[in-house]
């Protein structure tokens, strides 16, 4: 795992006890994780950080965030992270503090990074309505059931997207359901196969 020169510079500052005593160091780590995972900047208002020079604070915060994201992206293990931070002259205790904090937030970080990227519209839910058509102004005595199915979808870029709605007869809904069941069976088999491959 490699960091840019700018990030390494920030970590060297973080490793310096004169610039960053123990409590501010812990506070900055917490702030860095919070800003990425909760989208909150409140962590930087921590009273333990008030004596740190703002320019240094900004540099170190960026360095910490870069390291967190790079470790998450590469799915780096503890030894890779430790090696990287040792190169930035951090002592054992500070490296362990970072690794502990990283382990606590690893799953949330993976979810966040996995959700970034382009993909087709994602179906999140379905709602349906059953109606019985009796007549229209063009045709009386139609007497047939009809379903209105709405698929709630999300766009990976902007979040919301107009839903996809369509009408269908009972027979068409049965066909649609059978396709969905086949795709479910296919994905179950596929997932089992992948789990087997991964464990080998």
């Amino acid at each position, binding site marked *: 795992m490699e960091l840019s020169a700018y990030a390494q510079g920030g970590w060297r500052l973080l490793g310096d006890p004169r610039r960053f005593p123990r409590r501010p160091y812990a506070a900055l780590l917490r702030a860095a994780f919070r800003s990425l995972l909760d989208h909150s900047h409140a962590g930087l208002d921590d009273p333990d950080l008030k004596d740190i020079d703002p320019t240094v604070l900004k540099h170190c915060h960026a360095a910490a965030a870069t390291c967190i994201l790079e470790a998450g992206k590469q799915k780096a293990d503890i030894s890779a992270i430790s090696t990287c931070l040792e190169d930035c002259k951090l002592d054992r205790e500070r490296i362990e503090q970072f690794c502990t904090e990283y382990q606590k937030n690893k799953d949330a970080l993976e979810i966040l990074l996995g959700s970034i990227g382009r993909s087709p519209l994602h179906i999140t839910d379905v709602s349906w309505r059953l109606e019985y058509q*009796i007549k229209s102004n063009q045709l009386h005595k139609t007497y047939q059931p009809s379903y209105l199915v709405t698929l709630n979808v999300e766009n990976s870029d902007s979040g919301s997207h107009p839903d996809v709605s369509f*009408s269908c007869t009972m027979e068409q809904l049965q066909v649609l359901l059978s396709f969905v069941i086949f795709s479910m069976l296919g994905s179950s088999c596929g997932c089992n196969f992948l789990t087997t491959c991964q464990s080998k």
Partner: protein
Amino acid sequence: MTAKERASQRQIPPDCGNGEHHSFAAGWYMPTFEQILLQICTFQLGKLNVGVDTIQHGVEGLTYLLTESSKLMISETDFQDSIRVLGFSDELNKLLLQLYLDSRKEIRSVLSELAPKLPSYHSLEWRLDVQLASRSLRQQIKPAVTIKLHLHQNEDQTAQVLQTDPSTLLHLIQQLEQALGEMKTNHCRRIVRNMK
């Protein structure tokens, strides 16, 4: 209730749909009009020696009769009672009835196309994908089902590409099964039975 009383209640109103009250139902009791209508019904227009207007009126009247009868889905008895008041011969009445019965289904399917419609389901294709990596995260195993949904609306065909994960797929199956099951409940069966 006599046949004539029933006929007067359900008689096709003498309006050919364009606002004018053509004399299709009233006053055309001349044998010549009956012959005209017979010829129109049997597509023997070449043997007629009448003006274009007369043919047009005949065709419009016939169209209105068949469309309204099909729209209302009236029974054979009601149809016969409706046209009996026109005083045509039995042969023409039988021909008109047969024409109605033969073309009713097709006319109703054409009329059903005119009703307001939402996009309707046509077909579905699916594919199982597994995402292995992306720019922001390496070493992934993220299964996804990609669906291509084909819809029809007013002669236009659209295809929408959608994706979902296996757990959402399971939820979709449960919801759609519930939707289908609803038609079999006592409530729905009672409504359907009483409507017909």
